[in-house]
C-alpha cells in the first residue's frame, strides 16, 4: 500500500522516494528510524515530515557484482550479522541490541556520520565506496572522506545513499569496540582491521571527529604483523595519529590508550589467523 500524506511518504521505489523528497523539502529521510526517532525525542533534530525508505525493496539485500559486495542501503544490520565480510559481521553483531538490529540499516548508520557508529571503521578499513543516487543519476564516491564532521557528510540534499560497496573479502578482517558495559553500548572507541596479503589496514571509531585512518599506522601495523616492529611502535603510531574526544564517558587519554591496545590486539588476531 502506497501511503501519501503531506508530511509522510512511504514510497516503494528509489524514483518515488526521490520524488517524494523533492516534493517535501523539509522532510527527512527515515530508514529504520533508530537514529531519527531518539533524535526527535531528544530535540537533537527538527524536521517537518518523513520520507520512509522502509518499503523500497530495491534498497534491501546484498549481491555480488564484479568482485564487490553491493549492500543495499536499506539492508537491516541484523542481515549483516551473517555477512561474508568478517569485519562487517563483527561490527553488525555488536551494534545496539537484537531489537534494534532488525530495524537499523547500514544506510542509516553511514549517513548518521557519528564517529562512534559501529559500521564506519569497518567500511573505512575495508575500502568501501558509496552509491549516491539523485534524480539526475548515480555517482560512486569513496567512503574515505564522505564524513566531513560529526553528523555531516558529502551527501547532497537531493541524494539518497542507495548502496554500500565493499571489495569481496579475501584476507582477514575484524572489528572490536570498547564500552562501559558488556552489551548494548555506544563505542567509547572502536577499531577495524583488514589484512590482505600481509598488508594491514586499520580504521578507528571515536578517535577523532570523523572515522579515521592513517598511513603511518598501517605501516607500523604491517611491520608488526611481519614481526618487523614492536607493539610499542604501533601503539606510538596510533597515539600520534588519533585525536580522540574528551567527554563524560572517557578521557582523551584513556581513548588514546585503548585505541593502541585494541589495535595491537587486532593485529595479533590477524597474525593468529595467518598462522
Amino acid at each position, binding site marked *: 500500500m502506497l501511503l501519501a500524506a503531506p508530511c509522510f511518504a512511504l514510497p516503494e521505489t528509489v524514483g518515488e522516494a526521490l520524488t517524494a523528497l523533492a516534493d517535501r523539502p523539509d522532510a527527512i529521510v527515515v530508514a529504520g528510524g533508530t537514529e531519527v526517532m*531518539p533524535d526527535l*525525542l*531528544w530535540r537533537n533534530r527538527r524536521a517537518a515530515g518523513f520520507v520512509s525508505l522502509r518499503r523500497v525493496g530495491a534498497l534491501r539485500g546484498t549481491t555480488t557484482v564484479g568482485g564487490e559486495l553491493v549492500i543495499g542501503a536499506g539492508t537491516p544490520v541484523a542481515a549483516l550479522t551473517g555477512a561474508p565480510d568478517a569485519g562487517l559481521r*563483527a561490527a553488525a*553483531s*555488536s551494534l545496539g541490541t537484537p531489537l534494534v538490529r532488525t530495524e537499523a540499516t547500514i544506510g542509516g548508520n553511514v549517513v548518521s556520520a557519528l564517529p562512534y557508529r559501529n559500521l564506519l571503521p569497518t567500511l573505512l578499513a575495508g575500502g568501501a565506496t558509496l552509491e549516491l543516487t539523485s534524480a539526475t543519476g548515480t555517482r560512486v564516491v569513496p567512503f574515505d572522506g564522505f564524513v566531513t564532521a560529526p553528523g555531516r557528510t558529502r551527501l547532497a540534499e537531493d541524494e539518497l545513499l542507495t548502496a554500500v560497496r565493499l571489495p569481496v573479502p579475501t584476507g582477514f578482517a575484524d*572489528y*572490536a*569496540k*570498547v*564500552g*562501559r*558495559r*558488556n*552489551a*548494548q*553500548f*555506544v*563505542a*567509547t572507541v*572502536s577499531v577495524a582491521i583488514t589484512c590482505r596479503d600481509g598488508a594491514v589496514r586499520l580504521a578507528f571509531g571515536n578517535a577523532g571527529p570523523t572515522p579515521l585512518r592513517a598511513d603511518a599506522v598501517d605501516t607500523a601495523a604491517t611491520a608488526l604483523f611481519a614481526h618487523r616492529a614492536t607493539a610499542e611502535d604501533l601503539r606510538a603510531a596510533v597515539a600520534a595519529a588519533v585525536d580522540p574526544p574528551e567527554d*563524560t*564517558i*572517557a*578521557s582523551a*587519554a*584513556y581513548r588514546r*590508550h*585503548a585505541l593502541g*591496545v*585494541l589495535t*595491537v*590486539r*587486532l593485529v*595479533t*588476531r590477524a597474525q*593468529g589467523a595467518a598462522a
Partner: protein
Amino acid sequence: MNGGGAPSGIGGRTPSSSPLAGSGRASGRGQAHSGIGSSVRRPDGPAKVRGEFSYAGDLAAEGMLIGDTLRSPHPHARITRIDLTAARALPGVHAVLTADDVPGDLHVGLTLRDEPVLADRVVRYAGEPVAVVAAVDAATARRALRAIEVDYEPLPALTDPELARDADPVHPDGNVYRHVAYSCGDPDARGVVTVENTYRIGMQDPAFLAPEAGLAWPTPDGGVALDVATQWLHSDQRQIGWATGLPPEKVHLRLAGVGGAFGGREDVTLQVHACLLALATGRPVKVEYTREESFLAHRQRHPGSIWLRHSADADGRIVSVEGRVLLDGGAYASTSPVVITNTVTLLQGPYRVDNGRFEGWSVRTNNPSCGAMRGFGVPQAAFAHEAQLDALASALGLDPVEIRLRNALQRGDVATFGQRFDAPTPVREVIEGVARLPLPEGPARKAPGGVGRSAEGGTVRRGIGYAVSIKNLAFSEGHVDESTAEVSLCDGHATVHTACAEVGQGFVTVAEQVARTVLGASTVEVTQPDTLVASAGSTSASRQTMASGTAVHRACLAVRDRLLGRLARAHGLDAAELTIADGVVCAAGKPLTSVAAAAPGQTFRATEHFQHPDTFPLGSPEARMYVGFGFSAQRAVVDVDVELGLVTVVQIASCQDVGTVVNPTQLLGQIEGGIVQGMGLALMEEVVVIDGRITNPDLQDYLIPTIVDAPEIVSTYVTDPEPGMPHGWKGVGEPPLVTAVPVVAAAVRAATGLPLPAVPIRPEHIALGIGAPPTVTWTTPRPPDPSRPPGVVVDEEPDAALGTMAEEGAPPGP
C-alpha cells in the same frame, strides 16, 4: 510446577533454607503448600505476564487532560518575570499554574518542609518545576510550555559539596541538612598499624523501569483523588493536603500499578501537580514523565566522599576507627537529614569497634536533590569500610576472610552508637556460609568487554573479593514504624486490605501466604492499597514484610480467633482446642469442618495495627536508634581485562541473614535483583552532573546492567528467626545491594592490585591506574584511655530541624 514448588525445583541456584546458624529453625514446617515458606506465585503474576496488569502509565479517564511541567534550565537562578498570557490563551489549554496559584502551603518535603511545589522566585536545581499546565492532549500541553515566558537571572551555582558549609546559603534554611558527630571509647587508641584513605561514591539513579505517572480528578466532596505509582500513599496524601489546603479526608489516594521504585518514589514528584491541575480545571488530569524527566524529577542516591582511618593490632583486631562523611544532598532536603546518620553510624561495618570518632554532614548544593535509594546511605559506608578491611588485611598479611571473622560482631556486642545487638547477629555465620560456597568451575563463559569482543588477543586476570555488610532495617531514630491491616474472611475467601505499596517486591504474595497459613483461606484477595485504611509507612527500608506483614498476621490471627470462637460456641467446644491447618478446622487434632464451610455466609473481620518498639535519636539514653539489623556476606569472582579496564563479573556468592525464608523464589529475586543493582553502582551506573546539570538523563548513557552483565548468583541463607516477628521474618531487600558494591570492587582490586577508591570504577581507573592507595602507618600501640567515659558521646547536638516531622506527628522519614 505449581506454587508449591519445593526450593529444589528452581534450577541450580536454589536458596537453601538450611539453618546455618545454631538456633535456626526449619521454615515452612507443616505448612500448607501455599503458606509461609513455599514458593507461592505472585497473585498479580498472571495479569503481568499477559500484559494486562494496569500500571500508572496505563491510566486513562473520560475527558482527561494531559499535564506537563516546565522545568528550570538553570541550577540556580532568580525568576525575574513569568508571563503566562500566551500559554493561557492557547486553544486547548485548561490551566497554567505557578507558585502563585498554589492555594495551600507552598512547601513540602519528607523531613524538612523546604521544597516549593513550584519554584518560588528562585530555582535551585536544573529541572526544578516552575510551572505546570493541563491541556487537551500532550502536544498542546507541550506547546503551552513553550509559550510560557520566563526570565531568569542566573545566580552562582553551588555545585561543589565541599564548599557548601562555607558558601553563602542557597536556601533560607542554610546549606547543612544535618551534621552528626559522636565518639565512643577512646578514638585515639592505636594498634600496630593504621590505614586511611578517602573513598568516593558516585550518584546512582533508581532507574525503575516505569517512569512516574498518575491520574488525578476532582471529587464531589470538594476534594481530590489521585491514582499514582508511589511508595507511600499517606506521605503523598499529607503533602498534597498541605499544598491544596485540603484536609486529609478530602485527599483520596489509591495505588496504581508500580513499575519498580527502589526509593525513587518516596518523595512526591508529580503527585501535587496533578492534584492542583485537577482542582484548577475540574477535570481528570494525567501526568506521565518521560525518561528524561524521570531523571530530573526524582531523587538519586547521595554521592559522597568518606574518609576512614582504621587502626588494628597485629592480629587484625580493630582497635579504633575514625571516619568523616560528606554527602551531597542537592537542592532540597528530602531524606538527607536521615540518610547521613545511616552512613555515619554504620561506618563501623558488621565489626566490633569499641573506640571511634565519627562525623558527617549532608549538605545543600544546587545539584539534583538526593534522597532514598535502596540501601539508604549504607552502600556508601560499606564501600568504604570494606575497602579498609582489605587494606588492613593486606598490610598485616592476613586473609580477607580471616580478618573479617576476627572482627565479626556478635550478639551482645554494643555498637559505636551505643545500641546493643540483642537479636541474632550472625555475622560469623554469613561469612562462613559464603566462604563454603563452591567457586565457579570451568572456563569463563563471557570475556570482559562482552559483545564488543575487545578481550580477544589480550590478557584477562581473575580476582576474588569478599565483603560483609550491616544494614539497619525499618525506620530509625524515633520515626514511628507502623502499619495497619484490615482482614475479612467469608466462606473461606479472605480479603486483605492495607496501604502497603506493592512496587514489585512481592508483598501481595506474602500477604496471601499469611492469610492462607493463618486462616486456612482457600482464596485470598489483596485489595488495592488506598488511604481509606491507616498508613502502612513507606515501602522502603526493607520494612514491609516486618511492618505490614506483621499487621496482616495479627489481623488474620484476630479473624481466626473470631471464627474459632464462633465454632467453639456452636459445637460446645473449647476454642483453645481448635486449630486451623491446610484449610481445615480441627478440634483436638480431629477434622471438624473446612474453613470454607465453617460459617456459611458469615463474614469475620478484624483491623490490627503493628508498631515496632520505639527508637530514639543518636545519643539518647535509651541507646536504641534502630529497630533491627540484617547482615550479608558475599564473594565476587571477576575477570578483568586490565589493559582496557573492562570487567566481567563471573559469579557472586551470597549468604544472607534472612530470619526465615518466607517465599524462596521471591527471596532469591530480592537477592539477585539487589546484587545486580549494587554491581551496577560498582561498575557502570553514574548520573553525571556537570555544572549542576545531568548530562546523561537517558538509558543510553546512564548504564544499568544488561542480562549479559549479570553474573551467576549463588545464594544461601542463615535463618535465625528475628525475635518479635511472626515466623521470625525480617527485611531482606537492601542488604544484597549494600554488599554487592564493595564486593565487586574488592574482586577488581584483587585482580588488578590497584587501590580503586571510587565507584563506579571507570575503565580508565583500571587502565591508567587512577586513584590513590591507602596510607599505611606503623604505630606504637596505645591502649584506650580508661578515664574516657564509657558509651556514646555526641560531640554536637544534631541539627535542631531534624525532629520537626516527628514532633508534628507527621510520618517520619525512613
